[in-house]
C-alpha cells in the first residue's frame, strides 16, 4: 500500500501537489497523497495545521490554488459545469464536526431529502431506504424526531446515515467526535467501525487513537500544511519518525 505501488484502478482519491493559501498565508503546501479503495485513512495533526482545509478540498467545499484531486478518474478541481460538480460531490459523503443536520426537517426527512431532491428517487423509496439506514445506525425509533430533540451522538449518527443515503463510495469525516460529550464518542465510533468493516473507503480527521489503531490502514500526520509522515497506525503510534510527530503524540497523551 505504498504510494507508488497502486494503479489508478485501485485509487479512490489521489491528491497531487495541492497548494492553497488564504491571502498570503499558505495553508496547504504541496500535499501529495492517495487513498486506495477500501482503505481507512486517519489524518491527524496539531490544531490549525490544515486538516479541515485539506479534507474540505477533497469534495471542493474549498477551492485550491494549484494541484489536482482525482476522484473516480476525474479531477474534481478542474473547470467543469456545476451540474457535474454536484454529481461528483453527491458521490462523496461528508460528515461534519458540528453535524449540520437540517433542523427544520425530521430525522427521516434529513436522511431522505437529498436522494429525493438530488437523485430524483421516489419519496416512498427514499423513506424506506432512510429507515433502513437509521436502523443501521441504531436510531430507527427516532425517525420522526427533530434534530433539536436528539443528543449530540444521535445527531452525528443521523448525519452519517444522511451521507450514506447518497450511496457514496467514499466517506470523509472531519473530527466527527470532537464536538461530543465523552460518553457519546463510542456510539459514533462504533458506527464508523461498522462502515470500515464493510469495506467503505474512509478518510477521517480524528484524534481518536483507539479508532486509528483498530481500523485505520494508514495514518497521515500533517503539520503546517504538509504531510510529514504516513505510516500504518502501529508504526506511527509506537515509532513516529518525524520529530514533530513525536512531539504531537507526546502532547496528545497528556
Amino acid at each position, binding site marked *: 500500500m505504498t504510494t507508488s505501488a497502486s494503479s489508478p484502478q485501485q485509487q479512490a482519491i489521489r491528491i497531487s501537489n495541492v497548494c492553497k493559501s488564504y491571502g498570503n498565508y499558505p495553508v496547504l503546501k504541496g500535499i501529495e497523497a492517495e487513498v486506495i479503495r477500501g482503505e481507512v485513512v486517519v489524518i491527524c495533526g496539531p490544531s490549525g495545521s490544515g486538516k479541515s482545509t485539506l479534507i474540505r478540498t477533497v*469534495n471542493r*467545499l474549498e477551492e485550491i490554488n494549484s494541484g489536482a484531486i482525482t476522484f473516480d478518474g476525474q479531477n474534481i478541481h478542474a473547470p467543469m459545469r*456545476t*451540474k457535474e460538480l*454536484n*454529481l461528483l*460531490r*453527491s*458521490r*462523496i*459523503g*461528508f460528515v*461534519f464536526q*458540528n453535524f*449540520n*443536520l*437540517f*433542523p*427544520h426537517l*425530521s430525522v*427521516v426527512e434529513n436522511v431522505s*431529502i*437529498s436522494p429525493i*431532491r*438530488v*437523485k430524483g428517487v421516489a419519496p416512498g423509496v427514499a*423513506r424506506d431506504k432512510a*429507515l433502513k439506514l437509521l436502523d443501521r445506525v441504531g436510531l430507527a*425509533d*427516532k*425517525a*420522526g*424526531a*427533530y434534530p*433539536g*430533540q436528539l443528543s449530540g451522538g444521535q445527531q452525528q449518527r443521523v448525519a452519517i446515515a*444522511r*451521507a450514506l443515503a*447518497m450511496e457514496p463510495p467514499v466517506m470523509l469525516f472531519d473530527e466527527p467526535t470532537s464536538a461530543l460529550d465523552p460518553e457519546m464518542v463510542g456510539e459514533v465510533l462504533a458506527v464508523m467501525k461498522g462502515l470500515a468493516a464493510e469495506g467503505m473507503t474512509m478518510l477521517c480527521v480524528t484524534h481518536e487513537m483507539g479508532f486509528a489503531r483498530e481500523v485505520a490502514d494508514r495514518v497521515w500526520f500533517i503539520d503546517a500544511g504538509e504531510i510529514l509522515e504516513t505510516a500504518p497506525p502501529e508504526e506511527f503510534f509506537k515509532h513516529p519518525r518525524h520529530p514533530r510527530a513525536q512531539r504531537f503524540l507526546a502532547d496528545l497523551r497528556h
Partner: protein
Amino acid sequence: MIGDIITIINDYWLLLLIGQYPNGPLGGLANTLILSALSIALAFPVSILFALARLSKWPLLRWPVTVLVYVTRGVPLLMLILWSYFLVPLLTGADVPSFVTMLTTLVIYQGAFLSEVVRAGIVALGEGQMDAARALGHSYLSAMRFIILPQALYNMIPSMISTFVATIKDTTLGYVINVPDLTFAASQVNNQLLTQPFQVFLILAVVYYAICWSLTYLANAVERRISRRRAGPANDPASPSLAQAKIVSEQL
C-alpha cells in the same frame, strides 16, 4: 360627542367600508386591506429575489439591487410615491391608475425592507447548512429552496406580520395621490360634514389602531411560539418525541 360619532358611523359606514363601490371605484377599508395584502403578497417574493441577488457572487446582480435597496431605504416613502406618481407616466407615457402606482411603490419599498430581513435570516443560519447541502450534491438553488429558505423564512414570520402592519399604516400616504382608501373615505366624509373633523378622524384612528394592534398581538404570539419551537420541541411537554414519531410512522 359619542352621539355624533354614532350618527356618523350610521350614515357613512358603507362609504368608510367600501368607498363609492359599486357606483365608483372600490375604496374605504376594503381597499386599504386589499392594497396592504397585495403589497405584502408581492413584496414577499420580491424580497427573496432581492436578498438572493444581494448575496449573489455576481457583481452584476449584486450591485444594482444593493443600490436599489439602499436608495429605497434611505428615502422617505412619500418621496418614492411622488416620484412614481409624476415620473412613471412621464417616462412611460402611460396613464397608470393611482392604485397601481401606490401598489408598485409599496412592493418595492417593503420588498427592500424585507429583503434585509431575509438576507439577515440567511446569513444567521451560518455556513454549515449550505456546506452540508452542497456536500450532499444539492445545487445552490436547490439548497436555497429546500434547506436554507424554509428555515430563514420560518424565522421571519413575525417580521412579515410587522411589515404587514407597517404596510397598512403606509397605505394612508396613498391619500396624496388620491388612492381611494379608508383615509380618503374619511376625508370625504369630513368634507361633507365640515364641522366634525375631530369625530371623523377619531373613528379613523380607532379603526387603524384596532387592526394594527390585533396584528401586532398576533405577531407577538407567533414569535413566542417560534422561539419556543426553536428552543427544541424536547423542552415542550405538549409534543413528546414519541407522539411525533408515531405520527410520522403512520404517514409512512
